C-alpha cells in the first residue's frame, strides 16, 4: 500500500501512531513492510490457504464474534442435503456439470428453497450466476450452530485441514509467524475493537481472484468486522477512479449502478428482464425503479410506458465479451475496430505479443493518450517487427491517435476506494488539440447521430433516441461535466428538480437517474462532490468532504455496528444506533437501513418489497439480509473458497487432487501456450509482477517525465542473493527472463527483500518483476507482461499475473525469437493433464468463447 497508494498510506501511519498494529503479507519486503510491525513473506498464489488457516484458527479457538455471527451472517442457515464439499470430492464441490464444463449451483442452495437457474437459461463464463430473482430468504436455521448441515459446521469442516502446518507447507510461512498474525487479528476484533483488511491486485489477479476476497470476507464476518468503524475490506484500486469505472461501468456485462446487462435469449422484453433481476426480498426488490429511471435518463421523452421505457433500444449481450475473450476473437479476425482510451494494453495487459497479433487483424484502432504509446505504435515498434518476423507494410490496421487532456486540464470526478466522489476542477486549458474524454465521446456521438439521421433501421433507434443535450462550454465546445453529473444524480422529469437520493426514484417514468447509487450527488442542485470542508472543522466521519455513494454514507451495512436490539456493540465502537425516543435510526453516519424500521420488526408472511427487510437484518442488499459466509449463488467456482494452485505452479496442490480452479478460464491456443501444471523442468521459478511507487502502470504517464524516470530508470528484476549465486547473476548486471509466451531482459537487483521460501524441504525462489516498461518514452525497457499467458478467474475474467512460472539466465536476451506469436520459444513437452481431475479435464475447450464471424486468417487451435 505504501508502494502504490502512498497518499492513502498516510492514514495507516496515523493509525500506527495511535497504536494500531500493521501487518503486511507479501512475497517481497516492500516499502510497506519497512514500516509495518509484522511482515510475512508468502508464496505468490497461496493467499486462500493463508486466510483459510486464520479462519480455522478463529473457528477452532472459538474466537469468532458469537452474537454477530449468529444474528448477522448465514452461519445458522441449513444447506441442501445434496451439497458435497471439496473435502468430500478431492477438490470439487457438488454440481459439476460434465457436459457444460461448469458448476450447476442447485446443490448449494439453502434447505427448503427453490433451486438455481432455470433450464435453458444461458449463463456465460465471466458472469456470476447471480440471478437476483432466484434469491430468497432462508427457511431453516439452527441458532445453536450445531446442526451438521448448518453453514457454520460446513465452514468448520471445510477449513479443518488448513492447520498451521498446512499453511507452512502451502504458503512457506513459518508457523510462529502465521500464529502471530492469527492471534493479533483475533485479539483485535470483537465488541471493543475492529480490524481492517486492505488488498489490491496481489489478491485479485489470480485464477482464484474472487475467492481470495471471499476468504477475507468470511474472516471479517466471523470476526464481526463488517459494517463497523475501523473494519471492512478495502479494495485499493489501481488508478484514480477505477472504482468509478465499475460504478458507471466500462465493463461489458453491467449497466450503471450494477444493474445487469440484458442478455440475448432471455431478456427479450422488459418484463423478462425484470423477472430475472428484481429480487423477491431485500433492497433489490426496488430494481424496477432504478432500471426505469436509467432508461428515462438515457432516452428522455423517447422512453415511454408504451415502449417499455425504450428497453428495446438497448443491445443484448450474446456471450462473454470480456477482455481476453475479445482479444483472442480479434486475433482470429472477429473484431473490426478497437478503442483504447486510458489504457496501454500491449504493456499493461498480459501477453503483449498476443495483443499485437490481435491488433494486426483490425480494420481500425483508435488510441487516446498523452503520448504515442506502445499500443499506438504496435505496427512499427515491437519485438516481432524488430526481428523482421512481421513487416509493417503487411499490416492493414488503420491507426488513429488522439492526444488527450490530462486530469488537470479537464473537469470531472474521481471515485476512490472509499466510494468517495471528489470533484476535480480544471486548472489549465489543454494544449493544442488535446481534448477530454467527455469531449471526444460527446462529439463522436453527435457525428454518429448525424450520420444515422433519418435511419429507420430498428438497430439505430437507440442511438437516435439518446438525450444528447448537455450544454457546451468554451471555444472547443466542451460538454458540461456538471450537467452530466446532474443527470447521473437524477431529477424529476416534470420540472427537472434534482432528487435527494434513490429513495425518491420511481418506476412510472416520473424520474430520471443515470446511476441510482450516485443519486443525490447533485442534491439541491449543488455539486456535493465538490465540497471541501476540512476534516478539523467537522465530525470525525467528515461527511462534508466530497460525497460517498450511496446517499453520502461512509460505511456500508452500518446497521451491523449495533446489536440486534439496535444498541452499539460497545461505546468505543458506537456508530449507528436505534433512537427509541424518536423511533428512528441515527448516528455518526447515514444509517444503512430503513430509518424508521425498529429492531424488533420481524418479516410477516407474504411480505413484499422493502417489507421483507427484518429489523435486525443489516445486509439489506442480500435477499436474506445476512452476510454470506457460504454463497449459495453468485459464484462460478464454488460456494466456499478453496486453495487451488495457479495455472502454472512449482508444486502439486498439497490439499486436493484437483490442482487448479476447475472453473478457471483458459485459452488453449498455439499462441498462448501454458507450462506444465507443476514441476516443469524448463520453468523452475515463481514469477510475480507488480508496480513501483515511481511509475504509473504501463508508463505513459511516468516514463516521459525525467523527474520520475531518473528515480527508476530501467526495467529490473528483483532476486535473492541465493538465486543470484545459483544462476551467476550479478547485481546491476543483465538477466533474461523467459516463459513459453515471451522473453525479456532486465537489470538485476539482488536483494534480501525477495527471500527464498522453504516448502517441504525444498527451496522455492521467487522473481519479482515490475511491469512499467515498454519501448516508448524517456525511460525504456522490456515489458514484463510479455511473459504472462491468458488465464482468468471465472467470475470476473481477471487475469492471473501475480503467480506464474518462468526461468532466468544471466546476460542480455538472445538475438533469437522473443514472442510466441512468431513461433515456439521453448521445446514442447508432452501433454500435461494434471491440472484437473478426470471429470473436469473432459470439459469443452471453447466453453467461454463467443462465435464471431471470421473475416481473415484464423489461428489454429491447440488441443488440450
Amino acid at each position, binding site marked *: 500500500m*505504501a508502494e502504490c497508494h*502512498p*497518499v492513502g*498510506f*498516510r492514514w495507516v*501511519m496515523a493509525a*500506527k*501512531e495511535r497504536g494500531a498494529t500493521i501487518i503486511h503479507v507479501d512475497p517481497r*519486503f516492500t*516499502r*510497506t*513492510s*519497512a*514500516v*509495518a*510491525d*509484522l*511482515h*510475512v*513473506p508468502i508464496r505468490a498464489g497461496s493467499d486462500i490457504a493463508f486466510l483459510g488457516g486464520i479462519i480455522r484458527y478463529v473457528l477452532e479457538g472459538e474466537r469468532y464474534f458469537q452474537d454477530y455471527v449468529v444474528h448477522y451472517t448465514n452461519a445458522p442457515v441449513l444447506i441442501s442435503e445434496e451439497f458435497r464439499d471439496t473435502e468430500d470430492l478431492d477438490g470439487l464441490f457438488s454440481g459439476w456439470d460434465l457436459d457444460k464444463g461448469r458448476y450447476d449451483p442447485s446443490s448449494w442452495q439453502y434447505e427448503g428453497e427453490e433451486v438455481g437457474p432455470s433450464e435453458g437459461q444461458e449463463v456465460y463464463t465471466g458472469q456470476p450466476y447471480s440471478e437476483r430473482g432466484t434469491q430468497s430468504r432462508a427457511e431453516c436455521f439452527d441458532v445453536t450452530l450445531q446442526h451438521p448441515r448448518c453453514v457454520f459446521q460446513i465452514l468448520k469442516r471445510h477449513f479443518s485441514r488448513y492447520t498451521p502446518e498446512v499453511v507452512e507447507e502451502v504458503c512457506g*510461512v*513459518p508457523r510462529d*509467524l502465521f500464529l*502471530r498474525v492469527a492471534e493479533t487479528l483475533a485479539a483485535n476484533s470483537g465488541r471493543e475493537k475492529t480490524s481492517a483488511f486492505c488488498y489490491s491486485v496481489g489478491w485479485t489477479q489470480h485464477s482464484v481472484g474472487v475467492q481470495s476476497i471471499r476468504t477475507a470476507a468470511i474472516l471479517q464476518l466471523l470476526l464481526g468486522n463488517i459494517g463497523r468503524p475501523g473494519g471492512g475490506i478495502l479494495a485499493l484500486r489501481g488508478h484514480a477512479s477505477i472504482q468509478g469505472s465499475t460504478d458507471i461501468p466500462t465493463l461489458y456485462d453491467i449497466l450503471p449502478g450494477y444493474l445487469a446487462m440484458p442478455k440475448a435469449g432471455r431478456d427479450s422484453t422488459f418484463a423478462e428482464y425484470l423477472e430475472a433481476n428484481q429480487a423477491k426480498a431485500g433492497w433489490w426488490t426496488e430494481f424496477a425503479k432504478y432500471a426505469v429511471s436509467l432508461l428515462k435518463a438515457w432516452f428522455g421523452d423517447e422512453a415511454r410506458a408504451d415502449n417499455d421505457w425504450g428497453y428495446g433500444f438497448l443491445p443484448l449481450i450474446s456471450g462473454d465479451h470480456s477482455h481476453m475473450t475479445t482479444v483472442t476473437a480479434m486475433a482470429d479476425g472477429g473484431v473490426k475496430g478497437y478503442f483504447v482510451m486510458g489504457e496501454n494494453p500491449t504493456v499493461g495487459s498480459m501477453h503483449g505479443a498476443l495483443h499485437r497479433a490481435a491488433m494486426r487483424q483490425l480494420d481500425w484502432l483508435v488510441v487516446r493518450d498523452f503520448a504515442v504509446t506502445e499500443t499506438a505504435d504496435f505496427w512499427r515498434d515491437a519485438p516481432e517487427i524488430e526481428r523482421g518476423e512481421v513487416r509493417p507494410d503487411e499490416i492493414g490496421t488503420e491507426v488513429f491517435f488522439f492526444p488527450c487532456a490530462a486530469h488537470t486540464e479537464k473537469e470531472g470526478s474521481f471515485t476512490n476506494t472509499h466510494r468517495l466522489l471528489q470533484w476535480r476542477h480544471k486548472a489549465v486549458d489543454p494544449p493544442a488539440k488535446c481534448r477530454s474524454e467527455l469531449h471526444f465521446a460527446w462529439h463522436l456521438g453527435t457525428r454518429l447521430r448525424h450520420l444515422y439521421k433519418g435511419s429507420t433501421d430498428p438497430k439505430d433507434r437507440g442511438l437516435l433516441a439518446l438525450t444528447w443535450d448537455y450544454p457546451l462550454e468554451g471555444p472547443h465546445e466542451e460538454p458540461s461535466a456538471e450537467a452530466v453529473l446532474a443527470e447521473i444524480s437524477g431529477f424529476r422529469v416534470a420540472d427537472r428538480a434534482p432528487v435527494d437520493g434513490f429513495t425518491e426514484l420511481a418506476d412510472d417514468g416520473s424520474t430520471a437517474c443515470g446511476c441510482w447509487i450516485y443519486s443525490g450527488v447533485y442534491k439541491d442542485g449543488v455539486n456535493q462532490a465538490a465540497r471541501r470542508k476540512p476534516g478539523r472543522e467537522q465530525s470525525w466521519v467528515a461527511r462534508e468532504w466530497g460525497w460517498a455513494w450511496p446517499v453520502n454514507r461512509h460505511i456500508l451495512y452500518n446497521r451491523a455496528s449495533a446489536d440486534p436490539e439496535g444498541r452499539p456493540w460497545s461505546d468505543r465502537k458506537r456508530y449507528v444506533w436505534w433512537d427509541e425516543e424518536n423511533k428512528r435510526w441515527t448516528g455518526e453516519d447515514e444509517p444503512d437501513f430503513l430509518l424508521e424500521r425498529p429492531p424488533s420488526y420481524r418479516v410477516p408472511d407474504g411480505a413484499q418489497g422493502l417489507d421483507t427487510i427484518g429489523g435486525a437484518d443489516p445486509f439489506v442488499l442480500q435477499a436474506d439480509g445476512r452476510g454470506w459466509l457460504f454463497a449459495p449463488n453468485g459464484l462460478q467456482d464454488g460456494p466456499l473458497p478453496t486453495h487451488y494452485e495457479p495455472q502454472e505452479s512449482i508444486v502439486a496442490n498439497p490439499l486436493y487432487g484437483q490442482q487448479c480452479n476447475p472453473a478457471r478460464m483458459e485459452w488453449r491456443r498455439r499462441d498462448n501456450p501454458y507450462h506444465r501444471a507443476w514441476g516443469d523442468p524448463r520453468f523452475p521459478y515463481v514469477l510475480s509482477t507488480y508496480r*513501483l*511507487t*515511481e511509475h504509473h502502470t504501463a508508463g505513459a504517464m511516468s516514463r516521459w517525465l*525525467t*523527474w*520520475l*524516470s*531518473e*528515480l*527508476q*530508470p*530501467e526495467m*529490473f528484476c528483483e532476486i535473492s542473493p541465493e538465486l543470484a549465486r545459483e544462476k551467476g547473476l550479478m*547485481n*546491476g548486471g543483465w538477466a533474461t527472463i523467459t516463459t513459453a509466451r515471451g522473453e525479456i531482459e532486465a*537489470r*538485476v*537487483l*539482488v*536483494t*534480501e*527483500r525477495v*527471500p527464498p521460501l522453504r516448502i517441504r524441504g525444498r527451496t522455492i525462489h521467487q522473481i519479482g518483476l515490475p511491469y512499467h516498461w515498454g519501448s516508448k518514452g*524517456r*525511460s525504456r525497457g522490456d515489458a514484463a507482461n510479455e511473459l504472462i499467458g491468458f488465464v482468468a478467474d471465472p467470475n470476473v475474467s481477471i487475469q492471473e499475473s501475480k503467480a506464474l512460472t518462468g526461468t532466468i539466465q544471466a546476460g542480455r536476451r538472445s538475438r533469437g525469437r522473443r514472442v510466441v506469436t512468431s513461433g515456439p520459444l521453448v521445446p514442447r513437452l508432452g501433454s500435461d493433464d494434471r491440472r484437473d481431475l478426470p471429470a473436469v479435464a473432459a470439459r469443452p475447450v471453447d466453453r467461454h468463447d463467443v462465435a464471431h464471424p471470421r473475416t481473415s486468417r484464423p489461428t489454429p487451435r491447440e488441443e488440450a
Partner: protein
Amino acid sequence: MGAVGFFTDTTICIGCKACEVACKEWNQLPDDGFHFTGMSYDNTGHLGASTWRHVSFVERPVPLSGQQTGLGSFSWLLMSDVCKHCQRAGCLEACPTGAILRTEFDSVYVQPDVCNGCGYCVVSCPFGVIDRREDDGRAWKCTLCYDRLKGGMEPACAKACPTDSILFGDLDELKDHAGARLTRLHEHGLTEAYLYGADAAGQPGTEGLNAFFLLVDRPEVYNLPPDPVAPTKTAGQAWGAMALAVAGMAAAAIGAVLSVGRNEQDHV
C-alpha cells in the same frame, strides 16, 4: 518569522520520493541522468547541485526493534536527506563573494546572481551537500524554498510528504515535537532512536542543524558524518598551528643560516 526548519522523522518515511520530485518540480531542477545503480531503490545516489532532497534506502542485516519479519535479521531504513541549514554553516563562512547568506528565516541561501562558482563552499560543507552544476559552474543547494516562504507557503518537500515524515515549522516547536516523539518511541521499545543535530550540545561542530533528523542507527549508516565540523570552526586552531609552523620554519631558517655561518667560520 523566526528561525524555521525541518524535522525529518525517518521512522515514518515510506520512501515514496514525493519530496525529491516535488523539490525538483518546484525548483525546476534537471534530472541527474538515468543510471540504474543497483543500490536498493536509490538511483539518484546523493544530494548534489540538481538533487536537493534525496531519499536513501538502506537494506541492513539488523532487525528493527518492535518489527518482526520472516526475513529474520533484516530491516529497510528509509530517510529523506536535505541541506541541514547549519547554525554554523561551513559553506556560508567559506564564501568569498558574499553570495551565501543567512536569511530572515535563519536558513542558508545561495544567491545565484552573486555566486561566481569558485567552489570554496563545496569543500567547506561537512555533509557534502552543496555542489556546482557542470553546465553553469555555480553552486546550488536547497533554498528551504525561500520563494515559497516569502509567499507564506511551506517548502515543497514538506508539503508533498504524505506521512509527515518531513515536518516544517518553527524551530523551537519542531524541537519540542521531536523530543516528545523520541520519548514516545523509547516508551514503545524503539530504544535505538535518537535525534541527529537537534542542538549545539549534540553536535558542536555545526552548533546544531536547522534541518535535523530522527534516526535509528549510526549516522554513517545513512551516509551522514558522525561528527561534522564546519571548517571555520577550527580556523583559530589552524591559525595557531600555522603560526607555530611559521615560527618553526623561521627558526629553522635562522638556525640554518647561523649554522652555515658557523660552518664557514670553521672552514676559514
